[in-house]
């Protein structure tokens, strides 16, 4: 993760381990995510990755990339704009959008873009410093 005046950037690969790990843990085997023929019938080239894999990447951002560790997420919002596929490389770009010292809050606006520089998801995450 790189941090600069332009914000934070980090690249994640939606690897087979991430994909299978998500299914193993959460048991979401909806055919959109597991059946290529089903996904094609819905207009996708391949099975679509679970959107909440991106939320896992956001968890990594807050838990591992911020310089302080005494933080917790109190609110998280995400809009999914385009599908993410297996082995896609998505880059998280996050920037502080608001901070309140009085209540120890930092809000980050973020988006994910894929290797084609398409914005696949965007949202806002609110972190409290404990």
């Amino acid at each position, binding site marked *: 993760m790189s941090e600069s005046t332009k914000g934070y950037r980090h690249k994640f690969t939606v690897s087979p381990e991430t994909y299978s790990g998500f299914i193993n843990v959460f048991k979401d085997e909806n055919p959109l995510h597991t059946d290529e023929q089903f996904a094609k019938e819905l207009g996708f080239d391949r099975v679509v990755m679970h959107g909440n894999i991106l939320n896992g990447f956001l968890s990594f951002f807050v838990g591992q990339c911020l310089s302080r560790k005494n933080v917790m997420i*109190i*609110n998280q919002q995400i809009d999914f704009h385009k599908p993410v596929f297996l082995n896609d490389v998505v880059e998280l770009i996050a920037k502080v959008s*608001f901070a*309140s*010292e*009085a*209540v120890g*809050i930092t*809000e980050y606006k973020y988006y994910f873009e894929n290797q084609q520089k398409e914005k696949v998801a965007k949202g806002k995450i*609110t972190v*409290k410093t404990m």
Partner: protein
Amino acid sequence: MEYQEVIKEFNRLFIDVLDNEEIVLKEETTANDIEEWDSLTHIHLIVEIEKFFKIKFTAAEIEGFANVGAMCKFVASKTEA
């Protein structure tokens, strides 16, 4: 901004943040009077108030507010034309 205008905007923000259309703030209202006003929603309220009125509180100022009226008076003083 006048006190009455501030408390009117507070009421709108409280309804929105606490998701309770029945909230009618009075000067003496405290967190004890509104079920949804807990420690987490308190944070959201402060954030939305800071954003809307374009002001910043300190932690000491927030702790010093005895009720909604005291907070509204403070905000009115901070947003005087």
